[in-house]
């Protein structure tokens, strides 16, 4: 277990020492400054709006960070040749995959917690503070979503370059968010093979919508039942595990081009 932790630490250092992380940080600061100063419509609905926009930003920012950081890890190591230094140590391919995932997931969860704290602080200044249990539930499920997303990007990156892997992961995520929840409506009007295929897609693709509790926070619906949260967490762990297994299968026999004699 220690080797994945060493690799995880290296991912943290890499993310924090890259300039693009600071671009995200500056954008976040600018966004919150605007949220704090804006007096929208001069009504009480403005505080709800602030929470809505802030949480949307937290989701968007954390997903961008998770995808870009995860999709970069393995291709970057191959590109600069660092993979040879790592794999010449007693490090297995699974250690590499799991350590990189742990690093990108933990760094995006850390950023998400910071974003939530900032959004909640702005919201509190506007006179609206969601209850603590709901916030913890939302954060927990958000963390599960980030686990799935970073495992997905990492799995794709075992067979693609950074650019191709991150673009593919973003397209899949957008399709997943926009299409998967609508599939039951589509199945309603279909029969036969087409309906079966749609059902297969619905059951086979990850359901990221189950991890999104933003509406509960925004509208103050209170905490969700514990059983529903537990089932969602179990689902997240299972999907992440399946995607990590896929990443390992893509990486375990991979040959790395090395110039020489």
């Amino acid at each position: 277990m220690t080797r994945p932790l060493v690799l995880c630490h290296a991912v943290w250092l890499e993310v924090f020492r890259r300039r693009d992380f600071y671009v995200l940080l500056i954008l976040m600061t600018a966004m919150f400054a605007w949220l704090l100063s804006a007096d929208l419509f001069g009504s009480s609905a403005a505080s709800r709006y602030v929470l809505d926009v802030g949480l949307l930003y937290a989701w968007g920012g954390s997903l961008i960070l998770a995808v870009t950081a995860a999709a970069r890890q393995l291709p970057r190591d191959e590109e600069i040749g660092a993979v040879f230094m790592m794999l010449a140590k007693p490090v297995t391919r699974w250690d590499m995959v799991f350590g990189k995932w742990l690093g990108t997931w933990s760094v995006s969860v850390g950023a998400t917690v910071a974003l939530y704290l900032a959004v909640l602080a702005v919201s509190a200044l506007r006179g609206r503070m969601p209850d603590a249990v709901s916030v913890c539930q939302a954060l927990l499920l958000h963390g599960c979503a980030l686990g799935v997303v970073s495992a997905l990007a990492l799995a794709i990156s075992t067979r693609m370059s950074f650019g191709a892997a991150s673009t593919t992961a973003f397209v899949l995520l957008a399709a997943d968010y926009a299409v998967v929840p609508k599939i039951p409506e589509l199945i309603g009007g279909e029969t036969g093979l087409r309906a079966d295929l749609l059902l297969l897609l619905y059951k086979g693709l990850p359901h990221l919508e189950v991890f999104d509790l933003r509406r509960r926070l925004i509208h103050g619906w209170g905490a969700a039942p514990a059983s529903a949260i537990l089932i969602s967490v179990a689902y997240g762990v299972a999907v992440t595990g399946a995607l990590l297994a896929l990443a390992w299968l893509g990486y375990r026999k991979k040959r790395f081009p090395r110039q020489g004699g």
Partner: protein
Amino acid sequence: MTPAACLKRAAGIFFWERLIHAVGPAMNPIQVEDLAVSYRTRSGVVEALRGVSFSVEEGGVVGFLGPNGAGKTTTLNVLLGFEEPTSGRARLYGCDSTSSIARRRVGFMCEHSRTHPFLTGRELLVMAGRLFGMRGSALRRAADSLLERVGLSGAADRRTGTYSRGMLQRMGLAQALINDPDLVILDEPTSGLDPVGRARVRELIAGLRSEGKTVFFSSHELSEVELVCDRVLMLVAGHIAASGSVDELVRDGESLERYFLKLAAERGGEGGVS
């Protein structure tokens, strides 16, 4: 392979490799038997290695020579578990080279050593040590001592992304030695270095020999090999074409370069594999 055979193999690797690792000193550092590696390409199958067999005994410096495309890098890739052979086997201290345990007593320096540019030299060594399970003050002492040994103490807290080529080569050597390995595998260690850098690497290799380490290094710099090697293995077109000490291979008045060129011409130099 059946599930039962898979389980047996996994259990075998897990227990047997650990046992072998514990009694390792009795085993040869490198044992390669009938190794063959072939790749499927669009134009057909390319045979990078064809029945390569050799062993490297404990202690001394062994040079692994061959023209470009002879299969040196492929052999090193198999030895270090970067790729699996099509047939045959490679063992490090008795452990199958595909097992991560085999690499516990091995240090490796890659040609054109490049590493994470965002880490400082010291952080890189600490990370490399942790991957071997080293911890605390022992690791810090080992890192400081190696930085001193390769002449990088002054740049220890600079990011490796700012290092020159020569500094990166020396850092590559330092990270290869962090676990105090018994076997050091170096891939073209003097490639791209100026004469001062080459002399420094030669000194380091001589130092490792005097400590009783086994050094196995690939090169096509014949003058370097002549200067530092006790034994030479020559790979031509995927075969071991000659092996022995420099004195055994080279007749009176002949240079290693001349012998090598003659051998490469006789056996067909360009294998076309990198």
